[in-house]
């Protein structure tokens, strides 16, 4: 309106205006698959509580074509989510040891070491 400040309107496709915005939104979108995968295993636990037939039905569903596709998409999503969050971790964790700042790379590598250790521990529990 003439005589007053101009108020810009943010377009609905703002996330296309910069590649970094699109990458951010993709990172956020992976949460959907991370949550869906967790939800699937809650369904699995429920099926297990229902007895052998229910559990085998759940396994069959997960091993079906659509079940495998879902798991592949979920795996890719979780990995993308993990890598992008590990990259951001040094900003959240400002560590100082002996009066000196811990380097960002050390924080990132530390995350991967913990991830690998937890993965090995879970696999070991699975074999036991």
């Amino acid at each position, binding site marked *: 309106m*003439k005589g007053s*400040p*101009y108020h*810009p309107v943010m377009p609905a496709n703002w996330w296309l205006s910069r590649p970094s915005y699109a990458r951010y939104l993709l990172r*956020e979108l992976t949460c959907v698959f991370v949550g869906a995968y967790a939800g699937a295993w809650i369904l699995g636990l429920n099926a297990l509580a229902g007895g052998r037939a229910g559990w085998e039905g759940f396994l069959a569903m997960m091993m079906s074509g659509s079940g495998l596709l879902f798991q592949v998409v979920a795996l890719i999503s979780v990995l993308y989510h993990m890598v992008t969050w590990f990259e*951001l971790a040094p900003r*959240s964790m400002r560590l100082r040891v002996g009066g000196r700042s811990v380097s960002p790379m050390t924080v990132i590598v530390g995350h991967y070491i913990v991830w690998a250790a937890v993965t090995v521990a879970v696999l070991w529990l699975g074999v036991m």
Partner: protein
Amino acid sequence: MTERTIRLEVFRYRPEQDDEPVWQSYDVPCREEWVVLDALNHVKDHLDGTLSYRWSCHMAVCGSCGMRVNGDPMLACKAFLRDLPDRIRVEPLDHFPVERDLIVNQDRFLDSLSAAKIWLIPRKPAPEGEEYRQSPGELAAFRQYSMCINCLLCYSACPQVGLNSGYLGPAALALAHRYNEDSRDGGRLRRNETTASNEGVWECTFVGECSEVCPKHVDPAGAIQQMKLASSIDWLARPFRRKDPPS
């Protein structure tokens, strides 16, 4: 010696005559060492004296000349023409009302500084007849965040600022963190009233662009994530505190 002519496309909004912003182009003969601010000054001095924009120091200290150059929030005094194509589009910072041409209304930011209590709230009175003393380590804890020059590039880069009009924004929160981390300060719990509210750090979704565009490497995104952790601990500790701080 003139080496190159660039086409400068400038966002124009003159409230006394324009209903909507318009683009105006200027052909500017420029030198190798020029920055965008030099090109704007050439327009102002030789081609069109009606063009309005803010600037002062011409050395990335005052933070006045923040604007979008080919879509990227930048200081016009730090945007070298040799790094840019022959056609350069200059716009005001995003997410702020435009008063005129490249000049935005900064009230929202100034209100955020006040709301986040961007000043030292002493933990205890200074020693009688002495000044506060800080070790190099204590200084290092907050020095990075004290480098903010209030240029508002981070506000322009942050989509949450555009989506949520109540959000305090990256610079105000990074400056609040600067005081929270200061060994002389005891005001963190008072600042939490706004910085840890639904207008503060929890509105940040860690896009991270605020830190990418910061000309002083303040890293507001990092400051905000650290404030999320600190305010969570403060919230958990609340039942064990003897009394809440005065407002």
